[in-house]
């Protein structure tokens, strides 16, 4: 029997989640393999929702697959592609099929994706989506109409602790908690001293915080993220460490660094857990966790 993510959050144990990106197409073999690999080693698996605005198999379908395989899915839902009717309908559907965890996101801009001319919806934003979930739970839809059969979700959201300027992000973070977020996944963190500063502020809120860990695969990849991914800062020491790794073993170095960071977060109880993102390299997540001593 799978332990629900809500129970995991309440357990006080160090929480580990990870994520799987659905495929572009209907060949689900690789995703099924990744789900099988992850479901035993993490508390819950996020299913990304057209990540980076690239059209893929839907997160809802992928979450059902996790459920069918006996795993615990966290359904990522962005506000980019659906208006409030479609979002509410998908929430009803998800709940009816046993999907009880939702991560509410604004969604990337369409211009970064592979359907650049599409219309961005953004009828709701992430905090309004969280509020909508809490409204549905009270047996009403957003129009104030009664529901015949209601929902109950464990809802989460994200924060970027290294954004610059930071305070606007923190204001939004607090709004998300007020709107009903029970857990928060962070954008990738690499500078744990700075993350400790963020946590000394964030601890005051009644919310579980999972530090985002993105596996570094090479020094150029780290530099690319610094240049192109807002809110991600890989410190120079880590880039140097990746660059110094012998040819052919940069991935193992990345696994070592990720494992080391998770171990420090866990040993020092910096936050409540980690969310491991091994974009495209899901098969090494168990190795990262082994390296972390989990």
């Amino acid at each position, binding site marked *: 029997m799978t332990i629900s993510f809500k129970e995991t959050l309440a357990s006080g144990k160090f929480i580990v989640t990870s994520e799987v990106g659905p495929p572009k197409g209907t060949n689900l073999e690789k995703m099924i393999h990744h789900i099988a690999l992850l479901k035993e080693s993490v508390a819950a698996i996020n299913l990304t929702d057209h990540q980076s605005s690239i059209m893929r198999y839907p997160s809802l379908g992928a979450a059902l697959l996790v459920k069918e395989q006996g795993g615990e899915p966290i359904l990522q839902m962005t506000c980019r592609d659906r208006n409030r009717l479609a979002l509410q309908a998908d929430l009803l559907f998800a709940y009816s099929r046993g999907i009880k965890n939702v991560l509410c996101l*604004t969604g990337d801009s369409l211009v970064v994706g592979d359907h650049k001319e599409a219309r961005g919806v953004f009828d709701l*934003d992430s905090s309004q989506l969280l509020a909508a979930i809490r409204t549905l739970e009270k047996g009403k839809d957003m129009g104030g109409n009664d529901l015949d059969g209601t929902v109950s979700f464990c809802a989460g959201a994200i924060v970027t602790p290294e954004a610059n300027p930071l305070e*606007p992000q923190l204001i939004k973070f607090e709004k998300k908690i007020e709107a009903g977020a029970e857990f928060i996944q962070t954008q990738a963190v690499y500078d744990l001293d700075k993350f400790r500063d963020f946590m000394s502020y964030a601890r005051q809120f009644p919310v579980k915080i999972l530090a985002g860990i993105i596996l570094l695969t090479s020094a150029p990849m780290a530099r690319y993220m610094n240049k192109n991914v807002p809110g991600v800062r890989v410190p120079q020491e880590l880039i140097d460490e990746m660059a110094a790794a012998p040819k052919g073993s940069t991935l193992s170095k990345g696994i070592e660094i990720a494992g080391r960071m998770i171990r420090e977060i866990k040993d020092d109880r910096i936050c409540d857990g980690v969310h491991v993102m091994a974009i495209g390299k899901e098969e090494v997540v168990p190795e990262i966790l082994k390296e972390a001593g989990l």
Partner: protein
Amino acid sequence: MIRSITSQKSMEEIERLLGDYNRVFIIGCGTCVTLCRTGGMPEVLQMKEKLEAANRLVTGYMVLPVACDEITQEALAANQSAISEAQVLLIMTCAFGVQTVARRMDKIVIPALDTLFIGKERGLGEFHEVCRQCGACIIGETGGICPVITCHKGLVNGPCGGTKEGKCEIDPQKDCAWTLIYQRLKDMGRLDLMRRYQGPRNHQVVPRPGVFFVPQEGHALSWPKGATKP
């Protein structure tokens, strides 16, 4: 001053739209498109040269003072003979001008420009889209800066994760609306306004298209059927 901001369509598209129509009358406008350099006299003359080089006959051309104004009808009448010789009108104004002319003339009209947005002039030759006429103004709580249009995603509760050193991730030329709003409210000691939750927006204050009748004296202002009073 607000201006209709335009850009010229490619000549390939203009040629495709003109198709077999050989006799063309060109119309520009003396207001926004003159300022944007997309449909003033110099651009009209350039277009004339290009069409003639492509073996089309330009029966005449004119630059209307204000194409979107109702006086356009009289200005067109003054050029009646050259216009009547043309099979088609190639219009180098914004879509407001094109439609004003189209309603007055029994001829095919072809827009030579794309209308991009209604821009507010901030400096010489610099225009910004600052309002999208949504019908539910919230700038009283956002330091006078509209996030509905200034934020690429139209977010009303704060920045997304794509904000980067005060700029928007989609274009380093564009400011992050929420960094601007934050700075403004912080300077005024009113960050409490930013902390206030904004509910989902009403997208149907005026179900599009908007239609408005100036209320007559003694009558209450009437809203289009189905619209929610803001």
